[in-house]
């Protein structure tokens, strides 16, 4: 009975967090704020689903299965990496180097040290070329 209540609570929490994550993705105004919603809320939602799945497997007498833990671990490891990569791509394409605060080491921000894509702020235009 207690296991049922716990699984039910986990499933409801998972649904709410998943919905909040995707709603934030639609609602928040720009990419840098929008990154927060799926990488945090949705990851918690999926984590709760996977813990609920483990508990259900245990409740129905199958013992504790560790496959779900593997998926949870993988998602928790990869969500920050994808968020970092998307933020880097955004900085590279849309933000001029002059708009960013200075880094502590004097090395430019990631994605800002090489050639700028055509059309990005701070990119060399055709008129600048010799």
């Amino acid at each position, binding site marked *: 009975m207690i296991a049922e209540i716990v699984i039910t609570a986990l499933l409801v929490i998972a649904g709410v967090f998943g*919905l909040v*994550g995707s709603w934030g993705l639609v609602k928040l105004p720009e990419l840098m704020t929008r990154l927060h919603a799926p990488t945090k809320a949705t990851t918690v939602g999926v984590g709760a689903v996977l813990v609920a799945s483990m508990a259900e497997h245990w409740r129905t007498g199958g013992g504790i299965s560790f496959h779900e833990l593997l998926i949870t671990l993988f998602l928790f490891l990869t969500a920050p990496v*994808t968020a970092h990569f*998307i933020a880097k791509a955004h900085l*590279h394409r849309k933000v001029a180097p002059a708009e960013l605060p200075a880094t502590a080491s004097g090395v430019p921000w990631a994605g800002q040290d090489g050639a700028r894509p055509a059309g990005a702020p701070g990119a060399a235009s055709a008129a600048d070329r010799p």
Partner: protein
Amino acid sequence: MIPYALGFAIGCFALALALNLWQVTRAREVPDRVLALDTMVINVIALLVLYGIAAGTGIYFEVALLFALTGFLSTVAYAKYLLRGDVIE
């Protein structure tokens, strides 16, 4: 009690998937679209695991694991392409 919670969670994630799809179509920038697609993959993983709970089988965990792997790799490949103009240099 659990079937109702399962229905609620599946409904929530289905609605979340629809919102992601709308975000993919209305996003103006490519990184925005990549972010929406990545969120879609995560929501599909949740739906797969929920279906696994509902069906009472363990075979969907392997599917979800493969989905997680390919989703991560495709997002990184997209971002790498946007950053460098090339995926594998």
